[in-house]
C-alpha cells in the first residue's frame, strides 16, 4: 500500500467516527505521504469529508460526533484530550467547499491568523506575511491594489484562492481541501489546480474531490471511499488505470456514484 521513497506524514489507524448512533467511518487505515497530493474520491456521503475533518479535529465542533481510533501526524497522536487543537490547526490548515472569506478586507482576512498566533511583531512583518501568502496563492497580482476592499467582493475563484492564502498565512505543514473547486467554474478550477500542483512542493495536501479528472490531474495517491469504508488506496495512476477492486473499477468508469 505504501509508496516507495516517500515519508509518511499522516497515519490513520483503525479510525471509527460516529454521528450520534450512526457510524460514519469504519476502521479507516490510511497513510498520507509528505509533500504529495492525496486525493480522496467516492460517492456523496461516503465519509471523505468526515475523514479529513478528523485530521485537524474539526469534528470536535459537532456535538454529536464521536471519534475513536488514532490519527498520527509525524508520529504524534492527535486524538488525545491533552492535544491543543489550536496548535494542531495552526499546523493543519483547511480550505472548504464554499469559499468562506471573513466579511472583512482582503488584508484582514490574511492577517487574522498571524495576529492570533502572534506571528508578526510589527506592521512590516505583517505586510510581508500578507504579501507572501497572497503570492503563494497566486492572488497577489490581482488584489495588490485593493487590499482594503472586502474579501467578499472578489469573484468565487478569487475568494477560494484568498481562503487558500489565509490557510497558508499561518505556515501550516498540511493543507486539507474539502472539494475546493465544487463551487467554481472551469477556469477558476484550472487556476486552483495549478496552484495545488505548485503548493505540493512545500506542503502535504489532502484533497476531497468529486471530479475523477481532477484527482487524476492533481494527485499522486488516491483513496476510494465507499459507505464509510476505504475500499482501495494506491498511486493515482494505478487506481485509474488498473484498480484492484471491482467496486473502484465501477465507480471510476461511472457505473455508480
Amino acid at each position, binding site marked *: 500500500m505504501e509508496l516507495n521513497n516517500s515519508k509518511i506524514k499522516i497515519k490513520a489507524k483503525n479510525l471509527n467516527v460516529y454521528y450520534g448512533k450512526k457510524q460514519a467511518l469504519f476502521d479507516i487505515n490510511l497513510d498520507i505521504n509528505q509533500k504529495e497530493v492525496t486525493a480522496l474520491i467516492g460517492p456523496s456521503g461516503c465519509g471523505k469529508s468526515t475523514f479529513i475533518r478528523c485530521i485537524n479535529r474539526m469534528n470536535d465542533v459537532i456535538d454529536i460526533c464521536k471519534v475513536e481510533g488514532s490519527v498520527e501526524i509525524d508520529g504524534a497522536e492527535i486524538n488525545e484530550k491533552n492535544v491543543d487543537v489550536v496548535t494542531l*490547526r495552526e499546523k493543519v490548515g483547511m480550505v*472548504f467547499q464554499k469559499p468562506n472569506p471573513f466579511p472583512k478586507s482582503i488584508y484582514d482576512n490574511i492577517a*487574522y491568523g498571524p495576529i492570533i498566533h502572534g506571528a508578526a511583531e510589527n506592521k512590516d512583518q505583517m505586510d510581508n506575511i500578507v504579501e507572501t501568502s497572497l503570492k503563494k496563492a497566486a492572488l497577489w497580482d490581482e488584489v495588490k491594489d485593493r487590499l482594503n476592499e472586502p474579501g*467578499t467582493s472578489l469573484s468565487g475563484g478569487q475568494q477560494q484562492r484568498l481562503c487558500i492564502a489565509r490557510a497558508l498565512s499561518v505556515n501550516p505543514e498540511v493543507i486539507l481541501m474539502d472539494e475546493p473547486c465544487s463551487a467554481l467554474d472551469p477556469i477558476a478550477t484550472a487556476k486552483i489546480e495549478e496552484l495545488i500542483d505548485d503548493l505540493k512542493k512545500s506542503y502535504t495536501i489532502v484533497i476531497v474531490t468529486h471530479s475523477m479528472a481532477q484527482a487524476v490531474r492533481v494527485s499522486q495517491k488516491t483513496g476510494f471511499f465507499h459507505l464509510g469504508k476505504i475500499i482501495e488506496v494506491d498511486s493515482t495512476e494505478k487506481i485509474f488505470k488498473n484498480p484492484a477492486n471491482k467496486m473502484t473499477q465501477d465507480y471510476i468508469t461511472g457505473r455508480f456514484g
Partner: protein
Amino acid sequence: MTKEQRLKKRYRAEKRFKMYGLISVSLAVIFVLILVQNIFSKGSSAFSRTMIEVAVNYDSSLLELEGPINQNSLKDADFYDLAVESLLKIYPAKDSKEERQILRLFSPDYEFEIKDFLIKNPNKIDQIVPVKITASDDIDQLNKGNFPRDLPEDRRRVSNYQLNIYDNLIEKEKIDKKFNNYLFTKGDSRDPELAGIGGSLMGSFFTIIICLILSFPIAIMASIYLEEFAPKNKITDFIEININNLAAVPSIVYGLLGLGILLSVMEFPRSTPLVAGITLSLMTLPRIIIPCRASLKAVPPSIREAALSVGASKFQTVFHHVVPLAMPGTLSGTIIGLAQALGETAPLILIGMVAFVVDIPSSPVDPSASLPVQVYLWSEQAERGFVEKTSATIMMLLGFLIVMNFIAVYLRQKFEKKWN
C-alpha cells in the same frame, strides 16, 4: 376542464388573492390613520395655553416687606393680596361671590406667576405692568372651543357672569394663546392647565436607563453563552424552553414579582424608577435574549469554520467573528425590547408608580410616574383639560417609540454585513 379554463381559473385565483391582500393592507392603514387622527385632533390643543393679560399693580406697600427690596426678600414675600387686588380690577364685581368667580378665571398659580414676573423684573416695583397669567382650565377649554356655550347655565362649568367677563376680555384683546411650555417642564397637578409630563418624562428616562444597564449585558452574555458555549443537553433545552415561556408571561406578573420581592422583602423605595427599571428588566431580559440568540444563530457556520481552521480558539472565534457579525441584530433586538419596556404600564401600576407625584424626580430613587402610567392617570380624570393632555402624552410616547424603532431598523440596515 380544458387547458384554457384551468389557465383562466389560475389567473382569477391570483387576482383574488391580490385583492384580499390589498383589502387587508388598506384596512390596517385606515385603522392606523383613524387612531393617529383621533389622538392628534384631541391632543394638538394641549400644546397651547390660554393667557389672560392683567394690569398688575406692583404696590410695594401690599407686600409688607421689611428692609430693602431685592430678589431674596421678594422670594419670601406674600403676593396674595397684591395679586387678588389686581385681578379683581379686570371686571366690576357686586359681591364676594362674583369676586370668587373672577378669581376662578385664572389658574390657582396666579399668585406665583405674578411673583415670578417681579423677581425677573425687579425694577417694575411700584409700577402698573401688564402681565400674562395662565387662565383656568375652564377658560382655556372655552377659548379652545371645547365648551358648548348654548347649554343652560346650571349644566355649564362657566357661569353667565364669567362668560360676560370672557367676552369682554376678548373684545379688549386681553386673551391670547401661547406655546404651552408647562406641558414639558411641570410635573403632575390636580389642575389640568398646570399639569405637565416633565415628571413622567424623567421617570421614564431613568427607568429605561436602569432597564438598559441591567438587561443589556445580562441578556448578551446569556445569549452568547447559551448559543455558543453551553453544551446541548436536557438542562439547556429546559432553560431555552423557559426563556421562551418567560417572554410570553403577561407583564403584570412581573409587576407582582417586583411588588412581592423588591418592595416587600428587599424594601426598595416605592414608586421609584429604580424598582420600575429592575422589574422591567426582568420582563425585557427574555425578550432581548430571543432576538440576540436568533442573530447569533444567523451567522453562517462557514465563518466559524473559517476562524477555527486558521487556529482560532472557540473564544476567539466567537468574540472576533460571530459576535461582531451578530451585533446589528443584537442591538436592534435590544432597542425593540426597551421600546416595549417604555410602553409598559401594568407592572408599574403594581409597584406603585400610579402615585400622584408633583415633583420632578432628580434621581432614580425619587418617586415618580412614567409616560404610560401618566396616560393611565390622566385618562381617569374628569376635567376636559386632561383629555387633551392624555392625547398629547400618547403623542409623545408614540414619538419615542417610533424614534427607537427607527434607530433599530437603521442600525440593522447600516451595519449588516453581506456574505455570500
